[in-house]
């Protein structure tokens, strides 16, 4: 009987508690049994003990006397109960009275008192009747019983401060349980009585009876439907609601058992149901999850917590169940979060907190967002009262920062400063007058946080209770002014005040669209608040003067440059933490307190560096799970900014984990694409930012992932919105500023698709591979296993794409870098390739013939006085210069056009000698000595020449490269000194293009190639060189791999781009084009996309179109995506 345990009490009015610290309310209130949620006491003797204090002298009543007195009052009772009561109450003066009252209010369970179970207070039911599933029910039952008791004990005190408010009415039939003495009158009041028999099953534990109201305490007359009793019981037990019952229809005669009559039940929510201490609620839920973690880790929390929570949970469940059903019955619907008038369309049944299966690995199919949902999400995050009130005039101190910010960037800076709680700085920087009081108020309001998304807002209904509608005086207590109340749909908590999440988080997510200058915004922030002026103590050395910026490798030096561009303070500098520059402990260099210490304001590092350090030291965690203080982990930074933050979107990656463990006071995420394809991408951000409680995955899963999977889209987006709204800022180029003009006005963009014909060899090869691919496709289609052959078909498709680019991409030295091709086994194809190369007609008979002709031509080459008789250009550009065996010079493109022209004879335009594509010579930029010529021609009078002739191979260069070269020449002659970007997704293709262009001439083109093989310094130098202004009439060409250079780079010095090959996803190409079409671009951007005519590439364009239409990110279900993939393949193979 003396087992120590905790019990759930209904929260009391806070008024009775002498001022308590909110945060420690659980601990502190626990000491005060009258006000706590969880009370420790000794079984059921609580009240008895309390009263025994009044008469401290123990007086033993003899058993005989006790028995007689008791039996005289209550009649016969079993010996077990008698002995139980005697043991309990005999030593008190009014023991008999006590025993009687206990017997009447709460008869002890006889089973409990049986000899074999006397020690087990937890299992009231005898083992014989006990089924395992009843366990919980029984606990609940006994719990609610105890709650009931406890609440009764304090009802009197509480009653003095109560209010209640009408919430709704239910008209219902009641059935008489026993005959009445007289007919019921219209409008007669009845009362609801809650009965809790000691020894009862679960169902009957929610017995509610209607009684008459009279001087003798009423007499039970009827019952109400069971579904209502189940709703009402917890509400009564937990003291949430009050009920008024009125008879709607007088009965003509007195009632017999089972007669029915109509009643109206008016429900009033009581103030006791409204919890006032939100922190306690938060902590409680928090503890809840903590408890689960702790349980797995060998509980840190005391037993006190561990057991009390089960009670708490159970109470919450009861409460939630009862309230949500009640609201259903009363047809009370929540208002939309952001709209006071509209009711939520479908208030789905909330998810119970207890349903979370802890297993994170059992992730269902990845949910993806479609485009519309994304748009909805972004739009939802655009509007905010706070944003409107923030000044658009904030600029960083000019001592630190020398660039000019655009209006929206100033606005963004205001927001960032607000997020960092630097209101005074914002005040100083925003304008001369400082902030308006209105803005200050709005900011302060925002400071207090946003509404907790788990809560719903409800409107108080009009009082339609029986008493009011009949015209009687309002018996109910005073009406309150508030229009709304709030309920937590997940645990049934109620509140009249707006439940606010306070976020202590300093930082946020800046998700401006690409090209709006996130980098500059971030640097403006750094320069506005470079140091922590009020450093707090931390367990790690605090680098209070340093902001750590984590960026992808390709952007490392761009960041450094940007920093230097805007930095105006000699004491501020930027350090790269990368490669050889890493340090084993940063304390010394960052946390020095010496006045002259040179501490970097900004330290830039890469994701790779962080990851490396993390993996290196992760194994050396100490027993507390802390990482050893090495490198980046050796200090706590003032601020961390991560660029291209979507790099950490997958919480399971090591990169993400390594970043979670970096410490800082303030954290920022910069990203242009916060959601790549799943809503869960956002989770990792909350984790990194430590946005409690969302950084707890089971929490996130319960409130975001699961509802979303259940297709409660708008509800989920609402939750997300309220999670992110305070910490998330996104502007797009199309958005309009306060002046109504778009944020950014960019010069126009012109994208032309240029279709190109295959040359002979390409045509043959393409036909060959196409036939193979179609066969494979047809087979797959026939057997219905298209997707199983997916890889194989992909390989075929890849081949076709390669032929479109350059024949040499297939096999050999230029094998694709990233896709698997089993070329070795493909003997058939090898043979074909070889045969094609041999088939070429009109060749020189042998190498000797080539040389003989070639060396005889040297004397006929006169570059300066050459004129192409086809295009009349004079002199012919070095790279175009082509010599026929008859010694005439033409531009290569002109001559090829002539030879490929269908109606012309294949002769030299000048002398009508028959010529062939395979017998042409071109010039290369190398010297040829007289000796060499003399050797081959036997001419004694040979000279030295500054060039070298070589035999032209028409199939070496691809049609696309030819077209590119033609364009480049045009650009060179029309707009010399300009810059051009050439994109391809195949870096081996870029290699080929590079070679081809270099052969052209070194005079006109300056060629740069940027791909994944360059290291950081090389990259930077290359970009620097490329961006240098040209003045010698040449054009600079940057060959850029779509993968290595698709993101982040700023290449606005160029206004022309060529896309050599199409990519499946149009957005990747758009992103590439955005490298030049962005802020800083002053000229019209012209982009040419090369597409081979009637090839797989034209089909790819179709797929791109399709993707644009149906939304880039495909729908949630695997099935759907499968279908789309098949459709796409079918598009590729349709004739």
């Amino acid at each position, binding site marked *: 009987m003396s087992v120590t345990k905790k019990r759930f009490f209904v929260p009391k009015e806070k008024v009775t508690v002498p001022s308590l610290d909110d945060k420690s309310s659980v601990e502190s209130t626990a000491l005060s049994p009258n006000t706590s949620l969880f009370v420790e006491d000794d079984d059921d003797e609580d009240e008895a003990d309390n009263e025994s204090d009044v008469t401290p002298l123990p007086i033993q009543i003899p058993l005989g006397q006790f028995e007689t007195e008791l039996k005289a009052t209550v009649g016969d009772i079993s010996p077990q109960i008698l002995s139980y009561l005697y043991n309990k109450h005999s030593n008190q003066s009014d023991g008999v009275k006590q025993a009687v009252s206990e017997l009447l209010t709460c008869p002890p369970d006889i089973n409990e008192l049986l000899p074999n179970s006397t020690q087990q207070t937890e299992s009231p039911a005898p083992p014989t009747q006990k089924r395992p599933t009843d366990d919980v029910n029984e606990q609940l039952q006994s719990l609610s019983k105890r709650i009931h008791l406890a609440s009764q004990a304090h009802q009197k005190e509480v009653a003095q401060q109560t209010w209640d408010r009408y919430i709704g009415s239910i008209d219902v039939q009641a059935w008489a349980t026993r005959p009445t003495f007289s007919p019921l009158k219209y409008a007669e009041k009845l009362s609801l009585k809650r009965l809790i028999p000691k020894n009862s099953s679960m169902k009957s534990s929610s017995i509610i009876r209607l009684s008459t109201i009279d001087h003798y305490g009423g007499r039970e007359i009827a019952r109400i439907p069971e579904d209502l009793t189940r709703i009402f019981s917890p509400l009564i037990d937990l003291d949430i609601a009050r009920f008024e019952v009125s008879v709607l229809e007088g009965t003509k005669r007195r009632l017999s058992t089972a007669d029915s009559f109509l009643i109206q039940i008016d429900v009033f929510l009581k103030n006791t149901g409204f919890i006032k201490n939100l922190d306690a609620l938060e902590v409680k839920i928090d503890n809840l999850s903590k408890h689960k973690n702790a349980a797995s880790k060998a509980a840190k929390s005391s037993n006190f917590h561990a057991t009390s929570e089960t009670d708490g949970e159970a109470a919450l469940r009861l409460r939630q169940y009862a309230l949500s059903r009640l609201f259903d019955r009363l047809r009370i619907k929540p208002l939309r979060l952001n709209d006071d008038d509209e009711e939520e369309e479908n208030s789905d049944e909330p998810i119970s907190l207890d349903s979370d299966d802890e297993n994170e690995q059992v992730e269902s199919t990845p949910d993806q967002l479609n485009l519309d949902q994304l748009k909805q999400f972004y739009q939802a995050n655009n509007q905010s009262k706070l944003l409107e009130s923030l000044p658009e005039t904030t600029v960083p101190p000019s001592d630190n920062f020398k660039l000019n910010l655009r209006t929206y960037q100033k606005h963004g800076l205001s927001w960032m400063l607000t997020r960092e709680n630097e209101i005074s700085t914002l005040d100083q920087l925003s304008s001369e007058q400082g902030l308006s009081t209105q803005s200050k108020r709005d900011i302060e309001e925002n400071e207090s946080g946003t509404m907790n998304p788990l809560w719903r807002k409800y409107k108080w209904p009009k009082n339609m209770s029986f008493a009011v509608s009949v015209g009687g005086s309002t018996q109910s207590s005073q009406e309150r002014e508030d229009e709304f109340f709030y309920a937590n749909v997940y645990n049934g908590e109620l509140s009249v005040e707006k439940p606010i999440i306070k976020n202590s988080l300093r930082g946020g997510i800046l998700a401006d669209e690409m090209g709006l200058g996130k980098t500059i915004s971030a640097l403006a922030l750094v320069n506005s608040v470079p140091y922590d002026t009020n450093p707090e103590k931390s367990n790690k050395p605090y680098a209070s003067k340093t902001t750590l910026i984590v960026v992808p490798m390709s952007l490392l030096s761009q960041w450094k440059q940007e920093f230097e561009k805007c930095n105006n303070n000699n004491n501020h500098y930027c350090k790269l933490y990368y490669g050889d520059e890493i340090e084993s402990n940063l304390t010394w260099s960052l946390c020095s307190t010496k006045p002259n210490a040179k501490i970097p304001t900004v330290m830039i590092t890469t994701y790779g560096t962080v990851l490396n350090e993390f993996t290196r030291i992760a194994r050396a965690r100490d027993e507390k799970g802390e990482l050893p203080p090495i490198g980046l982990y050796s200090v706590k930074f003032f601020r961390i900014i991560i660029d291209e933050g979507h790099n950490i979107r997958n919480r399971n990656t090591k990169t993400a984990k390594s970043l979670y463990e970096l410490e800082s006071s303030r954290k920022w995420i910069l990203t242009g694409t916060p959601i790549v394809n799943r809503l869960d991408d956002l989770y990792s951000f909350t984790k990194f930012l430590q946005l409690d409680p969302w950084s707890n995955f089971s929490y996130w899963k319960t409130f975001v992932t699961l509802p979303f999977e259940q297709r409660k889209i708008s509800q989920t987006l609402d939750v997300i919105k309220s999670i992110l709204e305070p910490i998330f800022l996104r502007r797009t180029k199309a958005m309009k500023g306060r002046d109504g003009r778009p944020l950014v006005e960019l010069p126009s963009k012109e994208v032309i698709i240029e279709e190109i014909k295959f040359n002979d060899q390409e045509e043959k090869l393409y036909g060959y591979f196409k036939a193979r691919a179609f066969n494979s496709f047809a087979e797959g289609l026939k057997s219905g296993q298209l997707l199983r052959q997916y890889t194989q078909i992909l390989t075929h498709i890849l081949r076709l794409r390669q032929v479109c680019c350059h024949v040499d991409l297939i096999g050999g030295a230029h094998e694709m870098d990233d896709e698997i091709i089993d070329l070795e086994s493909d003997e058939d194809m090898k043979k074909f390739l070889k045969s094609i190369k041999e088939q070429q007609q009109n060749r020189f008979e042998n190498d000797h013939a080539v040389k003989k002709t070639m060396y005889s031509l040297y004397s006929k080459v006169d570059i300066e006085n050459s004129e192409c*008789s*086809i*295009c*009349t*250009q004079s002199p012919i550009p070095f790279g175009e210069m082509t010599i026929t065996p008859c010694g005439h010079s033409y531009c290569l493109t*002109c001559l090829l*056009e*002539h030879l490929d*022209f269908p*109606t*012309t*004879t294949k*002769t030299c*335009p*000048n002398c*009508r000698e028959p010529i062939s594509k395979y017998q042409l010579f071109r010039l290369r930029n190398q010297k040829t000595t007289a000796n060499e010529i003399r050797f081959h021609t036997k001419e004694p009078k040979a000279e030295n020449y500054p060039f070298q002739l070589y035999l032209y191979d028409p199939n070496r260069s691809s049609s696309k490269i030819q077209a590119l070269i033609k364009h480049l020449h045009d650009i060179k002659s029309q707009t010399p000194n300009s810059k051009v970007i050439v994109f391809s997704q195949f870096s081996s293709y870029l290699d080929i293009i590079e070679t081809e262009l270099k052969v052209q001439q070194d005079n006109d083109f300056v060629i740069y190639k940027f791909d994944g093989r360059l290291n950081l310094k090389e990259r930077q130098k290359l970009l620097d060189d490329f961006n240098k202004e040209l003045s010698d009439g040449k054009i600079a060409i940057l060959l850029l791999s779509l993968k290595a250079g698709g993101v982040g780079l700023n290449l606005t010095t160029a206004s022309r781009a060529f896309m050599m090959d199409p990519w499946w996803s149009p957005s990747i190409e758009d992103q590439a084009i955005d490298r030049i079409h962005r802020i800083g671009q002053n000229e019209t951007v012209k982009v040419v996309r090369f597409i081979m005519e009637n090839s797989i590439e034209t089909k790819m364009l179709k797929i791109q179109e399709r993707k644009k239409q149906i939304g880039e990110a495909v729908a949630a279900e695997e099935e759907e995506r499968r279908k789309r993939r098949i459709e796409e393949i079918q598009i590729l193979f349709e004739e």
Partner: protein
Amino acid sequence: MAALPKRIIKETERLVSDPVPGITAIPSEDNLRYFEVTIDGPNHSPYADGVFNLELYLPDDYPMCAPKVRFLTKIYHPNIDKLGRICLDVLKDNWSPALQIRTILLSIQALLGAPNPDDPLANDVADDWKKDEKRAIEIAKEWTLKYATKKD
């Protein structure tokens, strides 16, 4: 319409700045590929003292294919038919992109000086020419006087 290739611009400039004696070619203002041409009949030929009007059009594929040329003035010539079409190898199979407007017009002028009744276009004229060359030349002269002489 595609931009005018450099070559055509260059040729036109040269035709104006450095004209061939006895030949004029003036591009139309509406269409720079269309030329109004005059060719003086060569001396010592039946067409002497005549000035013949022609039209010349450069197709889109020029210079990969030959210009289209036609006599507008009636002419009695075995290689030129009633519609003014000209039978000349360089305007057909023997076209070479190395040829130009200037050279083509010179070739036509030369054709006037050296009729070739063995490769006729106007069969009746060629027949006349072969049967009675003197009479044919007379008719040619008459026609030239009648149709190709400037009436001042």
